[in-house]
């Protein structure tokens, strides 16, 4: 409970958390509060690139669909991909970091060598290559982002594992006959998890930006509405030169807003869990 009280002292963290709760609620409730029929091009009721009006609060896209409706539904794919890709990348990173930090030796050196390699590699280039050779779809995007963004988590987890492993209670557990699995699962992991949690929160934003970038480049699932795909359609349909700001601003603002919310939460969490960073 004291952690929560500490968290509430960070005004920006609370703002971020509030924004996240609101966005997730809207995304989850989208099928209940809106009519999915409006997403179908053939059933669109508006004109081409209509400016905002009483009927279409955020105007219409090139097919006459409501931009507000598309933005609401786009949140579902963006959040889903962002969260699953982060889960994948954090899992890989945590396992690699734990193994490298706990066991040490040649295997750990090799693992960290591979980690450093992937850390340096421009992740978007690799993600583009992966999603081009694999079949298009949400799963591919998740895989492409997850497989390219784990190294920073691995480094962080390894550093923390080394710190935790040096503590006397780990030695005690070993002396009492605890096996590797026991020591890692019962003693090391709990010491590493807070950091992993912070890293996850910060990584979701990055994953969402990556998802929108891949969708913008046309590597996303063509049948799903996402913010990146909306911006791709906007730039492809001449909305940029036509000055159709109502089509450009909402999806981008949604991405930036979600990413900022995750970042604010992550930074607040970080200073709660890492007292050294607390502002005096």
């Amino acid at each position: 409970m004291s952690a929560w009280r500490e968290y509430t002292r960070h005004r920006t963290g609370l703002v971020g958390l509030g924004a996240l709760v609101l966005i997730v609620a809207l995304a989850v409730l989208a099928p209940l509060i809106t009519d999915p029929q409006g997403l179908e091009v053939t059933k669109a009721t508006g004109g081409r690139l209509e400016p905002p009006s009483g009927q279409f609060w955020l105007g219409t896209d090139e097919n006459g669909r409501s931009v507000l409706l598309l933005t609401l539904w786009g949140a579902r794919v963006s959040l889903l991909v962002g969260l699953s890709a982060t889960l994948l990348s954090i899992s890989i990173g945590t396992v690699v970091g734990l193994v490298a930090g706990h066991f040490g030796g040649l295997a750990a050196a090799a693992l960290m060598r591979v980690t450093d390699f992937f850390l340096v590699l421009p992740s978007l280039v690799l993600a583009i290559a992966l999603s081009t050779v694999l079949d298009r779809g949400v799963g591919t995007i998740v895989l492409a982002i997850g497989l390219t963004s784990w190294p920073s988590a691995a480094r962080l987890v390894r550093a923390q594992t080394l710190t935790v492993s040096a503590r006397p209670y780990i030695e005690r557990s070993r002396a009492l006959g605890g096996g590797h699995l026991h020591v890692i699962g019962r003693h090391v992991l709990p010491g590493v998890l807070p950091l992993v949690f912070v890293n996850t929160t910060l990584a979701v934003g990055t994953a969402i930006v990556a998802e929108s970038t891949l969708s913008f480049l046309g590597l996303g699932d063509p049948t799903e509405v996402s913010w990146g795909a909306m911006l791709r359609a906007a730039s492809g349909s001449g909305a940029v030169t036509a000055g159709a700001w109502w089509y450009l601003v909402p999806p981008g603002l949604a991405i930036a807003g979600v990413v900022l919310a995750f970042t604010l939460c992550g930074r607040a969490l970080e200073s709660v869990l890492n007292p050294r960073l607390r502002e005096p």
Partner: protein
Amino acid sequence: MSDVLAPTGEPPPARARRGGGAARYALNKVGGALLSVAMIVVLGFLLFRALPGDPVQTMTRGRPVSAEQIAELQARLGLDRPLPEQFLRYLGGLLRGDLGVSYTFNVPVTQKIGERIGPTLLLVGVGTVLAVALGLWLGARSAWRRGSRFDKAATGIALTLWSAPTFWLGLLLLSATGGLFPSGGITYPDTPPDFLSQALDTAHHMVLPVLTLVAVVYAQYQLVMRSSLVEEMTADHLLTARAKGLRDDQVRRRHAVPNALLPTVTLVFLHLGLVVSGAITVETVFSWPGLGLLTYEALRGPDLPLLQGTFIVLAGAVVVMNLAADLLYRVLDPRVRAS
């Protein structure tokens, strides 16, 4: 990417172990870089030949093709041979500087990449210099006046810009300036061929792409500089500097900033991949004829030989730049040199 924002900051990885000679340090780093390049080469092969996806099927996706055409394409790409032989041919080609023939442009991949390297270097070079200068200056100022209105505003803006996707900022700029700047390309076709007019025209075309790149990239430099200077500010030698009567500004410029600069510079190079990613999207939005746009054209095809080529070149460039940073770091930091 996200760890840039996390000021938990690991110590810069470039520190040599005590007693290790300069030559051994350099050899170690060069060896590591060579290993990375080898891994890129292998990854480049595995990605495009050995993954479950069938290259020919990928390249002909959605088009009607006959069985003969497929066989022809397989033979042209050398896919009808066993995998080890393919790998050896690929290696041999790489060593001769042969990356195969582009499927969409019908010219050697290396030729296409050679044409596009210049514009990318120009864009990324100018963009990075501006972003580093702006980021370091803002970061130093906001750390020095930590908690001030300037600090809050600068950090807030940096975080917001960092959160926005690159291509969206580009689209917004393009839309907002409404034809004031060219929407694509590097020069107009009807510009006189003399150097001055060409240079001016190129500069005119560069304004928006560079602005977009800087807007997205500078934030990380600023945030890293800020946290590294904040850490430096409690150092004892600053108290000494103040005690001997230096003005606040002098303390900052001569004693605090140089020390904070080092970890920042290392991190800047470590995250060069981010600049490459930025270049891909910026070049795509503004049709800037560089390697980023080439990557986009390759993935649209999809033109696998071309995509493989840009992958190897872009990833290799980042590895080489990192090596340069590691070696430079040793020269720059007297503490590492003296040990």
